């Protein structure tokens, strides 16, 4: 006997900048969207804890504070906000999208006439030897600790990888008077010169470039050593990280350290969109799969994706896309005013310019596609099931010809993270070994549960049993 379904005219999954902006725009137009969010408070990862900031503005910088206006608007609007709710199952049918939601230990079934996915991004799983050791954390995770409780490492960490977040976190630690021991940047120094030669993009992206230059300048002035253009990275230690090894200018170096914070860019969090069977395409610039969206950011009938979950554009773009999908939804309902249509056009133009400028960042922080190939064979690709690159290679020679066949042969991607950490590595490896594009190789089948749920929670249906 099924529990009765609850109805949502408009459901939004995620209360980061995209989800909040969509909800606020819809609320302004007289709708009352239902917003499901995993976290206890709105803001997503980028504006986490912004309603009661822990670290000071001086440490966090102005980009964090910038979310305040949106957050306040969200908190004040008439929105059915459901924090602590995990959407672990979704299925399209003729009448919209059915959602399985886990809240306070119970499974609720929701029926949403229209759905906006605003699940955001996750840090890219990027294997290197020793990355499973305690003491290796994502830089984003360390920044979450800073936002959540003004927590900073008690020892100076090594920061390694590629992307703006690496320098932002280093700068924030510097502002907190806890500068990192060393920064290892995969991007070679000459790239910075190369991107400046793309004059048009460099002009469009001048804000990004200036911000980066300011952060790097501050770190250099403070005497934080920065090695640009490292070509390999390893973490070593017995039960936790003791040393970081890296290759720079052709030579290996060892840095004693108990904490290695890495960042290799972000990718869309794919599970819900994948489990809905939405088509994904490989984005060469962003080096990841992104769901296919049309010009209105729709990914299906009555289904939109806004923000980094649809392709990486950053927090401002996510907010813009949240407004855009809300306007697109209103347009569908024939509820837009002329002014809103003009606003939509302006938002689209701004988005175009911003994404064009972001190509600079993609170029600057591009990761070597051959990285996995250069790792030692014992490097874990799947952390959950402890499957190494070498084991995957063996299974490929035995006939593992696709991601799902390889998963079946090795358990790679079968663990509780459901392939989030290894999925694109497997696609890359297969593309390289068998010769083919990531699009031709494809990706794991993703099925529910896309979030953790116990059998008891699944069996415990809400009320009204017949």
């Amino acid at each position, binding site marked *: 006997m099924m529990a009765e379904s609850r109805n949502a005219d408009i459901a939004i999954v995620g209360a980061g900048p995209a989800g909040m902006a969509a909800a606020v725009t819809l609320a302004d137009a007289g709708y009352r969207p239902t917003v499901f969010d995993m976290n206890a408070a709105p803001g997503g990862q980028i504006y986490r804890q912004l309603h009661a900031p822990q670290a000071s503005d001086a440490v966090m910088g102005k980009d964090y504070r910038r979310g305040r206006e949106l957050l306040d608007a969200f908190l004040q609007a008439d929105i059915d906000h459901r924090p602590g709710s995990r959407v672990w199952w979704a299925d399209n049918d003729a009448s919209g999208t059915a959602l399985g939601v886990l809240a306070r230990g119970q*499974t609720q079934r929701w029926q949403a006439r229209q759905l906006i996915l605003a699940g955001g991004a996750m840090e890219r799983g990027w294997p290197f030897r020793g990355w499973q050791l305690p003491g290796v954390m994502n830089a984003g995770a360390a920044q979450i600790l800073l936002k959540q409780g003004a927590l900073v490492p008690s020892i100076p960490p090594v920061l390694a990888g590629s992307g703006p977040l690496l320098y932002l976190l280093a700068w924030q630690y510097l502002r907190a008077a806890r500068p990192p021991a060393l920064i290892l940047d995969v991007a070679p120094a000459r790239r910075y010169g190369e991107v400046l030669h793309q004059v048009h993009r460099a002009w469009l992206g001048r804000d990004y470039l200036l911000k980066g230059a300011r952060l790097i300048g501050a770190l250099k002035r403070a005497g934080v050593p920065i090695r640009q253009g490292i070509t390999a990275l390893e973490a070593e230690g017995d039960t936790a990280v003791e040393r970081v090894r890296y290759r720079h200018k052709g030579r290996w170096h060892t840095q004693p350290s108990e904490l290695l914070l890495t960042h290799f860019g972000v990718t869309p969090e794919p599970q819900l969109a994948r489990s809905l069977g939405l088509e994904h395409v490989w984005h060469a610039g962003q080096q990841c799969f992104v769901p296919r969206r049309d010009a209105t950011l729709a990914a299906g009938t009555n289904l939109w994706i806004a923000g980094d979950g649809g392709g990486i554009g950053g927090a401002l773009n996510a907010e813009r896309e949240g407004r855009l999908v809300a306007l697109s939804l209103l347009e569908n309902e024939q509820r837009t005013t002329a002014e809103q249509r003009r606003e939509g056009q302006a938002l689209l133009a701004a988005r175009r310019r911003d994404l064009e400028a972001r190509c600079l960042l993609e170029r600057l922080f591009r990761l070597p596609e051959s990285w996995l190939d250069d790792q030692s064979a014992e490097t874990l690709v799947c952390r959950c099931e402890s499957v190494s690159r070498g084991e995957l290679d063996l299974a490929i020679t035995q006939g593992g010809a696709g991601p799902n066949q390889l998963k079946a042969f090795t358990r790679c991607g079968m663990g509780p993270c459901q392939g989030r950490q290894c999925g694109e590595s497997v696609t890359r490896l297969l593309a390289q070994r068998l010769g083919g594009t990531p699009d031709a190789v494809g990706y794991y089948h993703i099925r529910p549960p896309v979030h953790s749920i116990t059998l008891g929670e699944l069996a415990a249906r809400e009320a009204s049993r017949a």
Partner: protein
Amino acid sequence: MKQRDFLIVGGGVVGMAVAYGLARAGQGVTVLDESDDALRASRGNAGLVWVQGKGVGMPRYAELSLESAKAWADFAGELTERTGIELEYEQRGGVDLCLDAEEARSRQADYAELQNASRYMAANFRWEYLDREALTSCLPGLGETIPGGTWSPHDGQCNPLYLLRALYAASRALGVETRPATPVERLEATAGGFRATTPQGQFTAERVILAAGLGARQLASGLGLTAAVRPVRGQVLVTERRPPGGRLPTPQIRQTASGGYLIGDTHEDAGLDKGVTLAMMQSLAEKAVRIYPDLEAARLVRSWGALRVMTPDGHPLYETSTTHPGAYNLNCHSGITLAAFHAEGLAEAIRDDRLEQSFPHFSGARLHVSAS
């Protein structure tokens, strides 16, 4: 290039077991398989090597299942020796649970009838009905509301995915050519054999074996073979790894070698939809917790739907074309249990072209008779 002896259409566990058997017997084999995201019963099944319940209404199928189960230990050992891949096979007996009194009654009646109809089963098929009290020694922690179940020492389990991998590895080591992402669009007879047309080009061989599961629906009739198979969806849940529970496998739920519990045994007609439904997932979770209450705290890590391949009467089809000699059609939904037989007796019968003579009960004729 020399023409191959056999083309096998379908790289699932049926096609690969026969490919392995034929290659071991010195035949040149090319396997044409579909793409990575095709409908795949071989990657969705529960991994039971199971005799109970098979062949009710067709004793020869029950006999074949029992024979194959008995051959499984040697079969698994040989594959492991050839490939180094452990199949996680064990035969410690199994229990088919009866969830209510009526099921307990009809189950026992079925088995008695089967043993009446087959002298071989009467002599060799060992089973016993155990009530809840008696079951708790082999199913520790069994829930209070389960009345009992039938136990049989012949039943066991394996990791079906590692079976498939081992069949691939062993076959390829024996010279079998496997062609992934090469879906067969057309099959036809040529002067010297058969030709398969695929987006990857044409492939020819003297003989052709359809082991295409539901794909037979498109390919069989052109060669005078039976196309009547239908999908029956099963949904499966898998939990995170749990401490070893020392519990015998059941078709309803079993703990795998890696520690996860696999929960299934649903049957639905859902067309070609291999999705999972919230209602069925919830009912599976309820059933699992009813059988083993301690699983209430176990996290679900995966679920899937897979399509069983059912012939009209549910029994295996081993068919030789009368209009196109040299073309065969293999279809069944118990490709794991029967794998030992498929690699051995079935592959030999095909090699010697005596499929109808050796296994007349499983030919397509029975279906055509009943259809007319």
